[in-house]
């Protein structure tokens, strides 16, 4: 399973945590294919969307949300976090490993941490290997 592969990652992000056009270069240079889904508020990341991303072949799914306490809708990022935790549990149960799904609190332009977040996932994925359900 530890063969080299180019991981497919689906990135859901709230527009207050990440700006695709500014930070695109970071993503581009990583050794992976990233598909991005822009959200007006991270609370829009429903559990079914996370699962569908895996169904459409993502090896890992990342959610970028704004820092806690900064959500324009007050609780959006907390809801997102709870849903991610719920789906992680579900993934564990079906044997897909919850580690494939992760969430990060970031602010726009914080490129160091954005880069770090993606690296963390890529490291995890070298152990996890490709999505067995893809």
């Amino acid at each position: 399973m530890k063969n080299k592969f180019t991981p497919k990652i689906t990135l859901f992000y709230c527009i207050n945590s990440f700006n695709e056009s500014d930070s695109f270069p970071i993503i581009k240079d990583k050794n992976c294919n990233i598909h991005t889904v822009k959200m007006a508020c991270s609370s829009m990341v429903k559990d079914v969307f996370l699962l569908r991303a895996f169904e459409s072949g993502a090896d890992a799914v990342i959610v970028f949300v704004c820092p806690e306490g900064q959500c324009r809708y007050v609780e959006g990022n907390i809801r997102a976090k709870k849903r991610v935790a719920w789906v992680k549990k579900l993934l564990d149960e079906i044997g897909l490993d919850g580690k494939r799904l992760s969430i990060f609190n970031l602010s726009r332009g914080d490129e160091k941490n954005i880069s770090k977040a993606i690296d963390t996932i890529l490291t995890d994925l070298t152990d996890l290997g490709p999505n067995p359900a893809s």
Partner: protein
Amino acid sequence: MPKKYHIETSLAPPRFQPIGKYTTIEFREDCAGSCRECVKKKCVYNIFKDNYQHMSSMAEPEYVYACMSCLRCIQECTKGIFSRVINPEYRTLGDQYWNADIFHRTWYQAHTGSIPVSGAGYRGPFVGQGFDSMWTDMSEIVRPTRDGIHGREYINTSIELSRRPERLSFNEDMSLAIEPPPILELPLPILFQLPSFGLLSTNTLLSIIKAAAKIGTLVLIDPANINDTFKPYLNNLVPMLTSDNYASYSDIIANCQMVELAYKKGIEKEFEKLRNIKKDLFISVGIPLTPQGSDIALELAQTEVDTLHYYADKDGRELNTEDPRFLKDVIREIHLKLVDNAIRQKINLLFSGGIAMAEHVNKAIICGADAVAIDNSLLIAMECRMCLRCKDGLSCPVKLEDIDSEYGCARIMNLMGAWRNQILELLGAMGLREVRRLKGEVGRSMWFEDLEEENFGPIFGKRKVPSF
């Protein structure tokens, strides 16, 4: 009765979900479920139903739709679980000049062939840059057209792109003593040209060319792009040539009505050689819109050119200058310079760049143009989002390169049909029966600076903020 010119329109729904303006945010945890009053079921526009269908059929989530913004779901939900934001994609659609609103309107027109109609009053700024700082006139009581709706189909939108003799002279037997030059008439003061970006595949180009052929206008095109597929349409193609390369395209030129030569000093020497390839060839000279534009116009107007085609940048501004003026002012300058030299009627002025809405056509003509050429709008009509991914070699989100040329043609015809109807609306309101009458008719328009000076000047004195 004269034959009525009409652009055939037909519904051409988008192939891809257009980018909607609003996104509804839903805090589902706040809703304990089965509300009999559920606003999702009651939505007047059935948006939630469609959205769910959309969602369940998609491999990837699609949470954005075209909400009509009545706010009822937000205000009536028993649990108050909804809020609304502007779709982040909509915010990044287009740019400052080609804004999201222009995209929406263009898509709507290309889809339906109808003119955008809405309730409530005007929603935009009081005045804006360029064409947005002029208003067109209307005639309150006395009007030569019969009435706003029934007389409209008789309003003539045709123009000529052929030069005219300065005066006629007659022999003693009253026969013409000169040979009048041939006439090139277009039924619409709009030509097509290709944008500087976009996946201009054979299909894309063919869509544009077919539409031009059907409505009877011309497409300005790089002759290198003309392949065998386009050969049946040569009559509607205007190859854009340079003095260096035209010799190698003589077979194409021989089958075209009109060609365009890129301007350079002494270009007029080539005209005769071109007409040696094809007699009666109509010649346009393509000139970048720079502060020297009016001098060039005066110089070329004396020659055997038919049309001067000025290229502004994509936002309708002058090129190669630190403080670029907008089309509106430059057209006026060029037009007036020719008028002052009593030579305006001899040639035709064509402008392109920044013509994004139907009203720009009327306004450019009021400023002194004979016609305009459009570019980006053609792609937007075919669902282009101007994301410019194609410039980086990335895939097109609406697969423009695969467009079916019949469908693309229908979308463009719809847009042109809708534009023409809007041109007629404005002409009708002014009581004009011919678009040619509009040329340089500044008296039938109102300009921001003049209105301010005339009406506010006596009250407030002198403007301290130089326009805006």
